[in-house]
């Protein structure tokens, strides 16, 4: 938008104005990740539409921008446990089983999933790739954890999980 000439700054103030502008506002404490995460969630819901079935969910390539690889790992486990496809007490590798148990024991699923991802050792990454690959074979792109929480599988293999705290129960219960 062009400023009108009548709004020109007096010459005697221009230099002072420039020097004020040289002060940079302090860094903000905005949680950009949460906002971008929410943008992705809204995107999924928008693309999905109210009448879509799970199998027709468009898988959106948003995970790389929203979740780091390790967070996606934990979220994958969370999803598998919740879907009854991975039993924390079952025949899985010790680390994966331990992480899954820890997640199930907690109420705030996503926060714990993110934190617990750090527990995975590098040697567990092949297992992570396997479960991710297996998940990609499914014709299920969205799994609900209850009234307010759900996870969405994205086209790039990442998991998109609501941050709504949810009480999870072991599928073996």
């Amino acid at each position, binding site marked *: *938008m062009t*400023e*009108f000439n*009548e*709004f020109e*700054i*007096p*010459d*005697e*103030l*221009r*230099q*002072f*104005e420039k*020097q*004020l*502008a*040289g*002060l*940079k*506002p*302090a*860094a*903000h*404490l*905005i*949680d*950009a990740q*949460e*906002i*971008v995460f*929410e*943008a*992705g969630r*809204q*995107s999924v819901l*928008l*693309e999905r539409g109210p009448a879509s079935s799970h199998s027709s969910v468009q898988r*959106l*390539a*948003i995970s790389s*921008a*929203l979740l780091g690889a390790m967070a996606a790992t934990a979220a994958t486990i969370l999803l598998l446990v919740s879907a009854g496809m991975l039993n924390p007490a079952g025949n899985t590798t010790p680390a994966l089983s331990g992480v899954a148990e820890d997640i199930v024991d907690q109420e705030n699923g996503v926060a714990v999933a993110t934190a617990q991802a750090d527990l995975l050792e590098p040697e567990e990454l092949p297992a992570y790739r396997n479960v991710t690959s297996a998940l990609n074979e499914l014709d299920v792109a969205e799994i609900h954890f209850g009234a307010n929480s759900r996870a969405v599988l994205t086209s790039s293999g990442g998991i998109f999980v609501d941050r709504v705290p949810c009480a999870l129960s072991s599928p073996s219960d």
Partner: protein
Amino acid sequence: MSSHQTTGNKAESPLQTGNANAIARLIEHHGSALVLYARGLCDSPDDVVQEAFLKLVGQAEMPRQPKAWLFHVVRNLALNSVRSNIRRRNREQAAPGVRQSWFEPVPEKQIEISEAVSALSNLDSEDREVVVAKIWGQMTFEEIAELTSVSAATVYRRYVASLKKLRSGLSGSRYIED
């Protein structure tokens, strides 16, 4: 139609795939200025700006002018926050050391940050709002006029008068005299 109303064009929606990056860029480019703007209006500037961005994300369509839209929403949220916050007086009497967090430290500054913050704090709220929106928000007088519901001429007069007050209040700084 307000300049920050939505476009009606879903292709520009922030909710479309890939526009998460656009949201991230808005945060990067305007986040600090929005927080500075909110800081002059309320006690919880970061929270207010966070909420404003979440409201943007929740919009069905991208505002035509996202920056102006964000300033508008931040203003409303900040003012609502103040109305429900009886600690406002405490904020206005905050120690100068706290106020320094308004700006990033700069090694070769010509204006002392503490003096600048003090001078800004001494402005009337309406005047400070105009100065911050103009200088750090890089908004036009017309945009600020719409934001604050006064005429552009009034905004201009406030701005010039406020610059003079600030310059007078910063007499101890090493700003360059014309």
